């Protein structure tokens, strides 16, 4: 007899659900990093499916840079309420106000997220932290495990990772250590979009083309704000743009687009000759090893 072949999205979905259930079975205090971006939205959707008809046995953690897109915060709060989830918020602004962190001269807050994140993980004694990171995003991420052990400083050491064989994930850790878990490791940007379309998942509006006041810097359209733009020689103009990633507004660039529907977005991404991060992340361009360095410090 013939076996129905599994579509690649079904295979990725089953594999990711397997990872969520492993964590639920092995850990005491797991949490899902939730930014309101498409990857974390897909993560939450998968977690909801993994435990249906029971509720998701994890809480959510958002690292709030203080420079978030209002549409995304609104989406976050609506989602939390709809699924009766518990949301933890670790705030970069609080750390700046308390003098623990200092604002960078360039106004970028993405690199400042590491301290609030790791402090909150320690304070709440989270032992498994789900991240939406994909290995296709960046070269340092290509080395990442599905279960990635972090020491009490949340540090990642690519030379000392546990080998990961078959689907036997080893989550053993000492008190104070935790495991970063990446259920979307084997997904690509296009997979994420195709899955969103198939499942009919709602996204924040910024992912679709809309008119917005932006200015040009380093080949990207940035939103004007008190964090450093526009400077002299940069002019604000109203353009039709959309975002490929959600991050801190100070360094997340928009792309010119007329894609107002999911299908149009998928067509646009399939034809794009720029990677997701290359097109939209100013901070990854700071150096060849920017992501690696930040991951070593505990960034997700």
């Amino acid at each position, binding site marked *: 007899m013939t076996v129905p072949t599994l579509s690649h999205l079904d295979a990725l979905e089953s594999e990711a659900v397997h990872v969520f259930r492993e964590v639920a079975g092995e850990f005491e205090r797991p949490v899902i990093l939730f930014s309101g971006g498409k990857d974390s939205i897909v993560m939450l959707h998968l977690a909801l499916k993994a435990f249906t008809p029971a509720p998701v046995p994890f809480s959510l953690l958002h690292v709030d840079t203080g420079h978030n897109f209002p549409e995304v915060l609104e989406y976050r709060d609506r989602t939390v309420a709809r699924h009766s989830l518990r949301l933890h918020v670790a705030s970069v602004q609080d750390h700046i106000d308390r003098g623990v962190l200092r604002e960078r001269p360039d106004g970028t807050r993405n690199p400042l997220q590491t301290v609030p994140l790791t402090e909150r993980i320690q304070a709440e004694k989270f032992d498994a932290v789900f991240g939406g990171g994909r290995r296709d995003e960046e*070269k340092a991420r*290509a080395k990442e495990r599905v279960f990635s052990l972090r020491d009490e400083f949340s540090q990642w050491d690519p030379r000392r990772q546990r080998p990961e*064989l078959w689907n036997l994930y080893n989550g053993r850790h000492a008190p104070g250590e935790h495991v970063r878990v990446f259920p979307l490791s084997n997904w690509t940007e296009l997979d994420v979009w195709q899955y969103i379309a198939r499942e009919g998942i709602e996204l924040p509006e910024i992912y679709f083309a809309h008119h917005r006041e932006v200015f040009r810097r380093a080949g990207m359209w940035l939103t004007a704000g008190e964090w450093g733009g526009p400077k002299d020689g940069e002019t604000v103009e109203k353009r039709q743009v959309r975002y490929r990633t959600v991050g801190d507004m100070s360094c997340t660039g928009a792309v010119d687009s007329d894609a107002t529907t999911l299908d149009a977005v998928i067509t646009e991404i399939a034809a794009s000759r720029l*990677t997701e991060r290359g097109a939209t992340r100013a901070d990854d361009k700071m150096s060849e090893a920017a992501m690696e360095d930040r991951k070593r410090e505990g960034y997700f």
Partner: protein
Amino acid sequence: MSTSTSTVERPSATIDTLRFATAGSVDDGKSTLVGRLLHDSKSVLTDQMEAVERFSADRGQDAPDLALLTDGLRAEREQGITIDVAYRYFATARRRFILADTPGHVQYTRNMVTGASTAELAIVLVDARNGVVEQTLRHAAVAALLRVPHVVLSVNKMDLVGYEEKEFRRIVEDFARHADELGLPGFTSIPVSALAGDNVVERSARMDWYDGPALLEFLETVPVGVEAADAPARFPVQYVIRHGEVRHYAGQLVSGALRVGDRVTVHPSGETSEITGIDVLGEAAEAAYAPRSISVRLADQRDVSRGDMITTGAADTAPSLTRDVRAAVCHLAERPLRVGDRVLLRHTTRTVQAIVRELGGFPELTTNDLGRIVLRTAEPLALDDYAAVRRTGAFILVDPADGATLTAGMVELR
């Protein structure tokens, strides 16, 4: 670098995926081959290529170094070596690919074992000038041990031996002589030059004596194994979802199929029951097939929990219930494994204590050693022969002191 729109079609949602691994010795050009595969299949985007061009120019090279497409860590770029396994993703119109890029340099065997554990195909790379060396045989032995269904012997640097057929033939014959004794059922050989791009993505005009496919063509067309639906089902219970009075046993189906009405056995208790419901992530279904993640309900309210395994099939196809585990192993950790060691054994969703009883006559295994082992476990395990079902015949040993993954094991029932 052109910024024109890609001519490579993107995959549809129904396309299949080939997971494969690469293995090679130091300096045989593996990073260049992988870089060439990504570059020539138009899987490298403009900003990635620009970064490679910039870095190559900074180092005074006059052509972009394709190896830089894969070597992503600071130390790798500085030292020109690959550290640890990396996973690469690319797609053509025919197929999606997940590549486990395993380094030949540092701790090669354990890295290849890691990459090969999920691979359906392994590329063993050989430098045409050096031919089959000890590392080649080691890589072939690992592919055979891990039961990777397809092996490609890729003879690289053909440009440095004048694209000569006799050089290629000599290496293939040499490799074939060893294949049998290594337990390799068969292999496909392809002559390539990763640096010049011969037979990687396009067939090369410089080797008209070769009439086989280019490497990518082969990767696109090699059959991906589909398990028979009449294979006995193996369903390790991962998690019990309680909803009111109802218990849903959640897990990923490793092999075969489960249907509503099936008589099942729960291991290790040996109790039997009947499937009364199947949910595929929220959708009720009459049947589900491997490798789907599902949940099932049983007719009787049994005490079934994480670590148990639900199976179907006649008694003679049942997994072997035993506390004495015989297996082929690869030792992964720097700390040696010794007879008498107490370890944790992780098999499917079950973790049990175990003692190392025998190490094939050796007093200890050290990093990268391949060997045979006998373990005694504190509780019985439902084991399959690794050759029959990879996922229920595989296990890892874990150090109870610090949680390090020590050893990869493949059960040998016969």
